């Protein structure tokens, strides 16, 4: 799985300060390939989507889109403000199937036309399935990101389309893991940003796209859509925007360093920004972690912030009394460490 489209923007939004991530986004091909070329050994951890979840995702979409998207029409009727039978649907994969760029461009053309039709008051579909959008980052390599929401839903409340994403993971009441929520909101944020761009394209900047998106999870019983969740995307959209700005900065620096070579070749000259969260989502995390090895940040973000990413040896020196405290802060830390050591029966020396 390579870092493309919304996935790339989500990752950039989550860690905008990481230049290594910037290089991974610039580099074509899968992340593991990037890892292998930089580190020189095969990536030995789990990576990418499992067959089982791919199958489920595909089946969920199939169920949702079948019968002219009957289940989706039923789930989204309250947002559209019409009876399910009166909702118009257009599945752009019927117009132009395929995942190659020519198909994407064709779907982008149709999407733009439908947005224009809707703004002009012409009969446009209420649900556009598999639309195509993009976010430009031109000029430069990777001049744009293709962004493809699952659905664009015309919401009566705004008189405009908003992006909706189908997520096949089961939601019982409303429990979605925080990590999943952050990721899917950022995906919607990227889609909303791309929709802003496309509306801007067809209406000359006159349309204000609401920072709203819809999440459609799966019901525990069978692969049926749950009641859609209306998501507040103000924060996510801004986070993605900052991620794009960061990418442009990284790209400039990487281009300056690589002199035409492939981005991975300059990785060692880049500044990684290792965070705890990287361990759960980035193939390069262990490699980047070496930049904080033996330092307090290796114990987590909080440790790095509170102790100022000093060497762990120094902190334990304070505990053992082998290091002289250089400040009131260090003195207090030494005292507290010794107190805790006594409390837990850890021999200081």
């Amino acid at each position: 799985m390579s870092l493309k489209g919304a996935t790339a923007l989500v990752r950039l939004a989550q860690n905008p300060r990481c230049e290594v991530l910037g290089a991974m986004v610039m580099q074509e091909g899968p992340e593991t390939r990037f890892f292998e070329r930089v580190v020189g050994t095969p990536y030995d951890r789990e990576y990418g989507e499992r067959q089982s979840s791919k199958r489920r995702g595909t089946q969920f979409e199939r169920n949702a889109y079948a019968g002219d998207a009957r289940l989706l029409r039923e789930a989204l009727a309250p947002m559209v403000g019409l009876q399910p039978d009166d909702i118009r649907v257009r599945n752009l994969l019927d117009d132009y199937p395929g995942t190659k760029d020519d198909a994407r461009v064709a779907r982008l053309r149709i999407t733009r036309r439908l947005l224009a039709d809707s703004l002009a008051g012409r009969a446009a579909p209420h649900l556009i399935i598999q639309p195509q959008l993009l976010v430009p980052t031109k000029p430069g390599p990777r001049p744009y990101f293709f962004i493809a929401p699952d659905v664009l839903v015309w919401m009566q409340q705004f008189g405009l389309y908003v992006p909706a994403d189908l997520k096949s993971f089961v939601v019982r009441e409303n429990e979605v893991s925080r990590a999943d929520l952050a990721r899917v909101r950022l995906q919607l944020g990227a889609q909303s940003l791309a929709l802003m761009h496309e509306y801007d394209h067809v209406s000359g900047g006159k349309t204000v796209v609401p920072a709203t998106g819809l999440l459609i999870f799966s019901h525990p019983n069978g692969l049926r859509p749950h009641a859609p969740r209306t998501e507040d995307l103000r924060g996510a959209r801004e986070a993605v925007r900052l991620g794009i700005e960061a990418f442009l900065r990284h790209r400039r620096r990487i281009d300056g360093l690589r002199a035409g070579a492939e981005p991975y070749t300059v990785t060692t000259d880049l500044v990684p920004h290792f965070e705890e969260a990287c361990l759960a989502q980035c193939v390069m995390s262990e490699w980047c972690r070496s930049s904080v090895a033996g330092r307090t940040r290796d114990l987590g973000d909080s440790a790095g912030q509170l102790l100022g990413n000093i060497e762990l040896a120094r902190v334990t020196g304070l505990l053992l009394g082998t290091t002289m405290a250089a400040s009131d802060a260090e003195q207090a830390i030494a005292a507290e460490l010794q107190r805790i050591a006594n409390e837990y029966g850890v021999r200081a020396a």
Partner: protein
Amino acid sequence: MMEIHELRQEEKELERRLAEVRSQLSAKHQAASGARFIERRPLRELILDTLGEARTPLNSLLIASVFKPLYERDVPATRFGTLSADEQRSFDSSRPRPVYLCHCLTHDRGQAMKRFWARSDWPLEDRIIGPMTGRVLFLKGAEWVIQLASAAGEGADADRLRFVAADQARDAGCQVQRGNFPFRDWITHIQAQITRYSESDRAVRVQAGSELATRLGERALLFGAPGELTSIPGTSKRWTAKSS
């Protein structure tokens, strides 16, 4: 008005009977000559025949799902792409064919809906997709598959066909219980839905048909009007993610 209504009912009944007869024929045909004979027939011919039997444009996904039980043939999605290209090449060649496999066209711009297949010898308005035609075509396709399944005999292929029909019925919102195939109920349910849309949908298609016929050439009327250029990345210079 009553008279028209009765005639429509009669027409529907005759169509149902015709579909039954055709499917029995094709079943017998297979039994007699074996699947190998069908295997030898080119895909385009099989699709043309299938469309002829269905008498309605069909979505390539549906065609693929019925070809397995009908002709023991797997049709990969990509095959439809090459089929379209072949058909256009043959149209451009010097040897015209009596009938072409072609695409349905969007009602407003006459562009191809590549997944919806039709026959060139059908009236133009039957090949046009209006705002609600997608639903009508799905329902008609589902009705056709259920008719086929109801007329099919026994055996693995017939079972497979019944399952495809059950999927279609479920997608159309019919009650589907495992191992239960109330074909008539399903068809009644689906026909009621078709009736809900058919008149207004037909009006849009007839209107669009007469307009497109004057705007598009013969080739475009079969394979769709060419799409205009799309600017990539397509942003105006002033656009920044901050705007709007």
